């Protein structure tokens, strides 16, 4: 990636974000609000105070991992949107793995719990990759369906087989032992999941950009026929790309259980998977860019509560802003290579 094309990406993405914010301001104005005041509160709620920043980072942690679920298969030319389902399955696997691991010493037990979540999420999305490769089933539709199936499995398990009746607020599974939970980064209220997210993004960046495997996946994403002609193991690469993506989202589910809730419930289904798709596209499927875009999008989620309290906007306001962002970013892809400033002289 040359400097020129990096600047082009940054400029076009920024323009898309500004257009989306402008449109959102229009929505606010239609409700009789001052758009500038809405932007200010959006900023304050996301980054304005230390409390807001911590909230933003907490929201960003799962987004980094679910974004990888779309970004890694995307390099192989697949459009996977199964992050939501893989997160749920990862969370469930973590709770179930907590039973045999109840007596394990903390560091080992926690590592195994996270591994269980990642493997379960990886197999879940990997199944969609297998269907794609062997049966030609469209992976976008199959992963979306798998999201709904995962949520049905979650609801089935937490209202029956693994329900903890001591949880009175809403149906939830039994809880992990206290010693198998991880806490916050010292001095903050941000849990360690953030470190998992940053590490996973860095690791996958190295894998996708600095190894032979990553290069081969890029060839596959560019042209399947060329990849076949070059003798690349296309099937295995599709499976590995899907598995890695699913594993990242599964890890997000494991972190939600180990670091945030301690049990599985409908709190796992809050749209991290869908927001992750937007993050991946905004970051143009680049794992390092995902870290920064996740913080930006986490900020939007974090300021949702303040928007609600200050202006009486419905909580879906952040969903609208995200949707507008997504549309603007996709529409902006048409600009690449068209702007004279960024062309080679």
């Amino acid at each position: 990636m040359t400097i020129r094309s990096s600047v082009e990406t940054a400029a076009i993405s920024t323009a898309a974000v500004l257009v989306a914010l402008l449109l959102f301001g229009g929505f606010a104005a239609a409700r009789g609000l001052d758009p500038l005041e809405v932007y200010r509160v959006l900023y304050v709620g996301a980054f304005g105070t230390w409390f807001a920043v911590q909230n933003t980072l907490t929201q960003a942690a799962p987004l980094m991992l679910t974004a990888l679920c779309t970004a890694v298969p995307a390099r192989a030319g697949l459009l996977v949107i199964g992050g939501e389902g893989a997160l749920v399955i990862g969370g469930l696997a973590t709770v179930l793995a907590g039973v045999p691991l109840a007596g394990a010493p903390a560091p080992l037990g926690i590592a195994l719990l996270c591994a269980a979540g990642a493997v379960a999420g990886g197999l879940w999305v990997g199944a969609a990759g297998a269907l794609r490769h062997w049966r030609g089933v469209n992976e976008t539709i199959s992963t979306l369906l798998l999201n709904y199936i995962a949520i049905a499995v979650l609801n089935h398990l937490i209202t029956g087989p693994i329900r903890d009746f001591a949880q009175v607020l809403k149906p939830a599974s039994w809880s992990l032992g206290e010693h198998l939970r991880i806490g916050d980064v010292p001095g903050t209220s941000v849990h360690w999941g953030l470190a998992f997210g940053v590490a996973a993004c860095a690791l996958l960046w190295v894998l996708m950009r600095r190894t032979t495997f990553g290069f081969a996946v890029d060839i596959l994403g560019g042209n399947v026929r060329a990849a076949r002609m070059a003798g690349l193991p296309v099937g295995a690469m599709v499976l590995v790309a899907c598995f890695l993506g699913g594993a990242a989202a599964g890890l997000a589910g494991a972190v939600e259980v180990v670091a945030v809730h301690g049990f599985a419930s409908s709190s796992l289904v809050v749209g991290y998977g869908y927001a992750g798709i937007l993050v991946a596209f905004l970051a143009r499927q680049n794992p390092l860019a995902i870290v920064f875009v996740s913080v930006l999008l986490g900020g939007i989620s974090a300021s949702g509560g303040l928007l609600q309290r200050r202006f009486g906007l419905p909580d879906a306001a952040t969903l609208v802003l995200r949707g507008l962002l997504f549309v603007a970013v996709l529409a902006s892809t048409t600009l690449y290579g068209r702007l004279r400033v960024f062309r080679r002289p």
Partner: protein
Amino acid sequence: MTELGWAGVLVAVAGGAVRVSTPYLFVSLGETLTEKSGRVNLGLEGTLVLGAMSAYGVAHLSGSPWLGVLVAGVAGAGFGLGHGAVCGLARVNDVAMGIALFLLGTGLAFYLGKPFIEPVAPRLPHLAFGAWSASPQVRAALDVSPLFVAGAVLAPVLRWALGNTKWGLVVRTVGDNSDAAKALGWPVSLVRTLATVAGGFLAGVGGSFLSLQYPGTWNEALSSGQGLMAIALVIFARWDPMACFYASLLFGGATALGPALQSVGVTTNYYLYGAAPYVLTLGLLVYSSSTRHTLVGAPSELTISR
């Protein structure tokens, strides 16, 4: 309620097939038309929810459910226009754009629909084909929605129009070979946009069924992937409107299975039966897809069949 016992389950599933199938039918017919022109619109799930919300809101404010149906269609057409216009730009991925509109559509519906969760809107009337029967279950099963009848008429009409009219030929040519269509001087992008607008209109109308007929209320959990399943159903139906009609009935029956079993006292595994339509969709996709050959009836310009 249990006077018919297990036969009641069958009656309820058959009745459910008719009652629940309408949104599947409208979305799949709309998507068939759009895909025949060579474009995919995965955003119809969002269109469905937006249609449901706008129909309910307008019916509540105006007192006329039919006006609600119309406005739902217009809202859907507007979203179709947005999809068509943006995907007409060079190098914009129509599958990803569909996901974006899915998220924007549901978000917008929740945002604008917040005030309409509590109030009551007038519902669409039923056509009572079961008035002759003494059994309340049979009567309930034969209360048919006028929208279902409209969809059942539309399916053969659309099939005929795609196969036998000049407009049908234009749409199919644009979807099968855009170079040939360009050589004939036909405006490829315009045809696709119009097909997407029409598909959006139908999906919006399908949404109005959810809020104004069955279940007949507006809330944020109204649609859980029906629009998406309808899109998958188009592949299974091989882009044939009549096959969409039969497949919609099948899906309606599958969706009605959980509640039907609950009515005879089978309440365990409720959520697993609720997953039946998704599992069925996935199974049918696995069954009807292939890596070896392009699917019969698949428009060659389609991004998801390449």
